[in-house]
């Protein structure tokens, strides 16, 4: 197990290194930040001074090495636009996205998986058919449209939930969170629901197809022949047998939602990372873009590592001998 973790860690380092190269090169070709940083009527001398200050006159590989050096010392640089350390900037926005995403993904799993197992267990049942049809809808209707509809219905028509913002927050370890206050929750519900619908459908369909397959196996027949109750069979046999694809999707969705909750954050004016990255792209704020993309890669690497560890925990066959 230890060697597995060490190996994965080494792989992760390589992935991050390659990623940093791609990110740096990619961002470099987007445009020249000098045009944004300096007013057009600045003198040539000032212009030259700024270029040197940021090191833009160096060859790109030297710039990359400097960037890597700073990265390793934990210095992500300063935002051109906000003129403050990128780390601080991201730390301000991250908690909002984190809580929104976690709640959305957990909610999607908590609702989607049981519904899916039920639909797979009784596929001919009317309720199961409704669930499966609804899940197709959840897949195919665009997120932004559902977001707008949610605002229309709950905020505009009935006026029972707020249309945007984080609401009242309370600090936990010095970080403000919405889910600790009632008002915060009322602000969280709609965006979280909006974000979770797609994932819920995906989890539901995965669980349903997995359950259908597993129910036909001899394992289940044997359990039934031993007189084990259906509830126990579903909870202790089926859930364990279908869990691996579910964990995979859980991890992927967690990662992609953290990184790209953009649409929902925009619609509900949720002050998270999504908004920050869009703003930084329009203003060519290189350090923010780079730091953000690096953060996203690191998150994916960590989540995938957790997913792999979860596989080993869930399936003993992967623990022994394998790898």
């Amino acid at each position: 197990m230890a060697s597995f973790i060490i190996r994965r860690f080494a792989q992760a380092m390589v992935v991050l290194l390659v990623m940093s190269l791609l990110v740096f090169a990619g961002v470099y070709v987007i445009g020249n930040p000098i045009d944004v940083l300096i007013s057009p009527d600045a003198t040539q001398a000032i212009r030259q001074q700024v270029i040197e200050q940021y090191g833009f006159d160096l060859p790109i590989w030297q710039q990359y090495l400097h960037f890597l050096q700073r990265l390793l010392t934990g210095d992500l640089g300063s935002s051109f636009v906000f003129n403050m350390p990128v780390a601080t900037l991201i730390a301000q926005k991250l908690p909002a996205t984190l809580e929104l995403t976690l709640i959305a993904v957990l909610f999607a799993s908590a609702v989607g998986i049981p519904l899916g197992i039920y639909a797979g267990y009784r596929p001919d049942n009317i309720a199961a058919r409704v669930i499966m049809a609804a899940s197709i809808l959840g897949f195919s209707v665009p997120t932004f449209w559902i977001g707008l509809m949610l605002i229309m219905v709950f905020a505009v028509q009935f006026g029972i939930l707020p249309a945007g913002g984080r609401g009242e927050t309370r600090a936990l370890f010095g970080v403000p969170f919405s889910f600790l206050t009632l008002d915060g929750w009322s602000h969280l519900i709609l965006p979280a629901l909006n974000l979770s619908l797609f994932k819920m459908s995906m989890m539901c369909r995965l669980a349903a197809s997995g359950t259908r397959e597993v129910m036909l196996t001899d394992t289940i027949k044997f359990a039934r022949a031993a007189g084990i109750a259906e509830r126990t069979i579903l909870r202790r046999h089926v859930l364990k047998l279908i869990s691996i694809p579910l964990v995979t999707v859980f991890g992927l969705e967690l990662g992609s939602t953290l990184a790209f909750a953009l649409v929902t954050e925009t619609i509900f004016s949720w002050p998270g990372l999504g908004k920050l990255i869009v703003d930084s792209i329009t203003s060519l704020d290189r350090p923010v873009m780079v730091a953000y993309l690096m953060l996203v890669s690191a998150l994916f690497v960590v989540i995938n590592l957790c997913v792999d560890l979860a596989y080993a925990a869930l399936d003993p066959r992967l623990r022994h001998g394998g790898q």
Partner: protein
Amino acid sequence: MTDLLEVRDLRTWFHTDRGIVKSVDGISFSLKRGEIMGLVGESGSGKSITGFSLIGLIDRPGRIEDGSSIRLEGRELVGLPDRDLRGIRGKDISMVFQDPMMTLNPVVRIIDQIGMAIRAHEQASDAQIRRRAVEALARVRITDPERKVDQYPHEFSGGMRQRVAIAIALLHRPRLVIADEPTTALDVSVQAEILKVVKALVSEMGTSLIWISHDLATVSSIADKITVMRRGQIVEAGPVRAVLDRPQHPYTQALLDALPSRSQPGELLASGATEAAGKLDPSTLGGSAVGAPADSGFVTAQGIDKTFARRAGSLRQLGVRLGLASEPAQVHAVKQAALTIARGEILGLVGESGSGKSTLGRILCGIIPPTAGTVTIGGEQVMDGLRKRSTKVQMIFQDPFASLDPRRSIFQTVAEGPVAHGLCTRAGARAYVDRWLRAVAFDPALANRYPHQFSGGQRQRIAIARALAMQPEVLICDEPVASLDVSIQAQVINLLMELRRHLNLTLLFISHDLSVVHHLCDRVVVMRHGEIIEAGTATQIFHTPKQPYTRMLLDAIPRLQP
């Protein structure tokens, strides 16, 4: 005293979209306390459905029809609500299935699987469960049960898993156990052990047993009485001796005649049990081996070695180089094997699972390269480096459901190789394929259909036609009849014998079924742990085996009549 089980006019029908399938259609039998009944029949005879009906596990669209009656100790089971049936399953009646690899949940520890089965019918503390789980494993003679209960199924061998399944089935000392082909997936020696354990436990507990099997020999070694089923109905029933010695129904007779152990080696087997057997049509044949001169070393394999390395990760490789880690374990599948097959001979390759016999077969066919050693056919190398060079050798696999591409028609399947190798032109492919299909007694008019439209026996014929169409001189058959019913098995064996005669084919016949090997083969090679431990003529091996292992294999063969 009434019988333990009383089945009257049991009808289990499946109401499908395409009409009613009468899987079990009006069968009646009874079973006394402690009695063992063998329920025999071929695929589709309804024997398994009968087992599932007894235990109340018929899912829609299946249904036990009105008027059926299953009485356990006088209590009517048909029509009982699900809740009551669940109370009976595992407690009064329990069941063991064919494939122990599939019945146990791979991701749940043995102790938890046993615990679930115990708690299905009674309250028990964790300590009680542990004690009873250890007892249960000890009862089926699993050594070191204290440690084994905490393991997962994949840490057990196939035979051990089947023991665990039997232990679970016997937890509540049921009145009746239904065993559905419980030893079919196991090696003969393991099968013999399981038979012994089950026999002992059943008589010790006074449990009645219904042993469902297609194998008359196994059944005859355990059962008190035999019931023969065909197409959902019972065709014959009676004490074991009476049924085997004086079968009354022609179907029973045909089943017995199809057994290779009942006729002289080399004779064609009676295969009248199934209609549409089809006759081989030798007039259409022709092949490159016909009329070839005798050659005692036609196929020669020398010093064949095959190791499968566990793939080492890059970090591990670095570790090995720095002396910090050990080389990953290698699986030594074949060790220094050497054999020859004379032209026109059938060589039997015998061994248990994991003996390396399939690997050796694949190397001889040139499908995988050996780690060391050479294979020549008629003096010509089969492999050219890592690539197969010779089309003189072709292979037939065990599972005709897996070896045919479901998305290709029979014609496409058979024509692919010959067209690619220029044995026929694209335009002439139709006539060419027809010729080889006719050679295996397969109606060429059906060549545009797809594999799923055919039965196992027909598919195996198609697989044979595909191999023959390459005009091979050597045919490697890897367990070609292991998954077939006895009557179909007899047809395929007959076909292979006739083809050998007409085409002067050389055959390597890989099998774990010694009675088939005895019937078909001229010479036999025995493999164990990757090594060839004994070789000789079929008569030598079967009558005067030198190695104790060979003798053990022969003793483990279930024989008709106790």
